[in-house]
């Protein structure tokens, strides 16, 4: 007779609570999860392979599509790696603009997380609030970069263009209003009994385990590890901004919720500081071989036109070597490991996706818990399958 003690059920890949195309095979003992097996790869597009066949510039738009809620952060991680390979100096203004955009993007990414995570647990109201503010950020991106979800704003050597007229007031208006909005979310959730019952003590992972499983980002900090790439290994002038790293204590879904809320407030503060201290100057490095020449120059003189053509079609030739550069994306440590063989395209582009490792610890968090808590836990680690599957 077949073993009937455990029931195996399939969750996903098309399931609203899996935030993309994640498939989980759950073995249940009644309502308790005994074993969970994630199956990933449904969104695999072979981005690393594609990178080996493109010039360094051509790879930037693909990075937007990894974690599609955090496009600016992905751009940043990639261009930092290439700039490290080239040993390129970036103008201060470009560094500040990058920080500003990356932090706005972090707020936008956390707002999507908050809205959808809470919606998974049955609260329909907050998503309308969070998407209202996210829309403000996307409008800013649209004016600054020309794109909303996939702005491709960053370039190797700087950013694609300077801020348009009047955008600084709009960013300032957003920043000033945002702390009030965070209070709105908190009145709906932080002391809400239903919310507390659904998230407190759910999906616990210990301090030792998060480190051993390679978990980064708010999930790591929710378990009480005060570590953030922006502080530990500062990049793009992050050492000139004042901010704190919020940490949790228990490592449950509620702690991760609190950590992300506090992070949004700090990101907001960083955007404000960047706006106030924004230096004047160029927004792209002056190196003639790497960045594209300015548009006005291309339309006016033949030398720039030739340069534009050469860089766009042929690219540039970095020295032989290998580098790793990482940023604190909304999900955790996003790194790019690039090996150059001296030609105009990378020999190998390895993407270190934070969600991939965070998700690998999911069975550890949900085994032994109720099946209804699986939804809470997946939501609380905030995965994006676009970067897991690449």
């Amino acid at each position: 007779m077949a073993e009937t003690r455990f029931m195996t059920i399939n969750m996903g890949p098309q399931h609203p609570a899996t935030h993309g195309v994640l498939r989980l095979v759950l073995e249940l003992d009644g309502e308790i999860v005994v074993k969970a097996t994630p199956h990933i790869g449904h969104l695999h597009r072979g981005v690393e392979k594609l990178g080996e066949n493109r010039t360094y510039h051509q790879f930037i738009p693909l990075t937007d599509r990894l974690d599609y809620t955090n496009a600016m952060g992905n751009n940043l991680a990639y261009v930092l790696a290439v700039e490290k390979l080239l040993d390129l100096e970036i103008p201060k203004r470009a560094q500040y603009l990058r920080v500003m955009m990356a932090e706005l993007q972090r707020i936008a990414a956390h707002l999507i997380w908050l809205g959808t995570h809470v919606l998974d647990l049955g609260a329909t109201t907050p998503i309308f609030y969070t998407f209202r503010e996210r829309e403000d950020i996307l409008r800013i991106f649209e004016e600054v970069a020309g794109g909303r979800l996939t702005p491709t704003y960053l370039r190797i050597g700087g950013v694609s263009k300077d801020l348009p007229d009047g955008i600084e007031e709009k960013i300032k208006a957003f920043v000033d209003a945002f702390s009030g909005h965070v209070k709105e979310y908190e009145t709906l959730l932080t002391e809400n009994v239903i919310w507390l019952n659904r998230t407190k003590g759910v999906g616990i992972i210990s301090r030792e385990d998060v480190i051993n499983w390679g978990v980064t980002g708010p999930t790591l900090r929710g378990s009480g590890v005060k570590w953030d790439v922006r502080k530990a290994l500062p990049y793009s002038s992050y050492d000139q901004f004042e901010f704190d790293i919020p940490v949790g204590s228990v490592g449950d879904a509620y702690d991760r919720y609190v950590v992300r809320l506090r992070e949004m407030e700090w990101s907001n503060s960083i955007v404000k500081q960047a706006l106030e201290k924004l230096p004047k100057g160029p927004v792209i490095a002056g190196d003639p071989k790497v960045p594209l020449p300015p548009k006005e120059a291309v339309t006016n003189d033949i030398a720039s036109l030739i340069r534009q053509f050469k860089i766009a079609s042929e690219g540039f030739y970095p020295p032989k070597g290998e580098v790793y550069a990482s940023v604190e994306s909304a999900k955790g440590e996003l790194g790019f490991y690039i090996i150059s063989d001296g030609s105009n395209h990378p020999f190998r582009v390895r993407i270190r996706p934070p969600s991939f490792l965070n998700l690998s610890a999911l069975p550890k968090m949900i085994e032994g818990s109720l099946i209804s808590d699986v939804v809470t836990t997946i939501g609380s680690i905030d995965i994006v399958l676009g970067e897991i599957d690449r």
Partner: protein
Amino acid sequence: MADIQSLIDKLKGKFPASIQQLKTFRGEVTVTLPKEDIYAICQFLSSDSELQFQFLTDLCGVDFFPETPRFEVVYLLYSMKNNLRLRLKAKVAQGESIPSVESIWKAANWLEREVYDLFGIPFENHPDLRRILLWDGYEGFPLRKDYPVEGPDFDKPFVLEV
């Protein structure tokens, strides 16, 4: 607090015969090791009370076809205590396997599966070595340099034959 030089000295003192190559590029230290020693050295680096490389940031494969041995497995270690990164490398020939470090860092579980999936490098003593991004029964290893970019059936229309 240990710095990178004292780390290298310590590694050299402990495993003098194992270090095949030591390279620094843009401030990143890369140590090439024989694959037989990778488990012992990882064990030492993660458990040493002074170094404490308790965090495996990344593990990936590289294909240097047509060189022999063609593959490299790259380990990127991080020590939160000393705020240091260290890259280890081991060369693996086609058809050979390499010891798994899954029992040291659980993070290696999925990372090694990915290397196995995309490069076809098997890991010894891995508890669950299955394909991860591609489906079971997929033929070939796409990140190998000799894998065609355009696919065997790319020129056929994407319609079912009736």
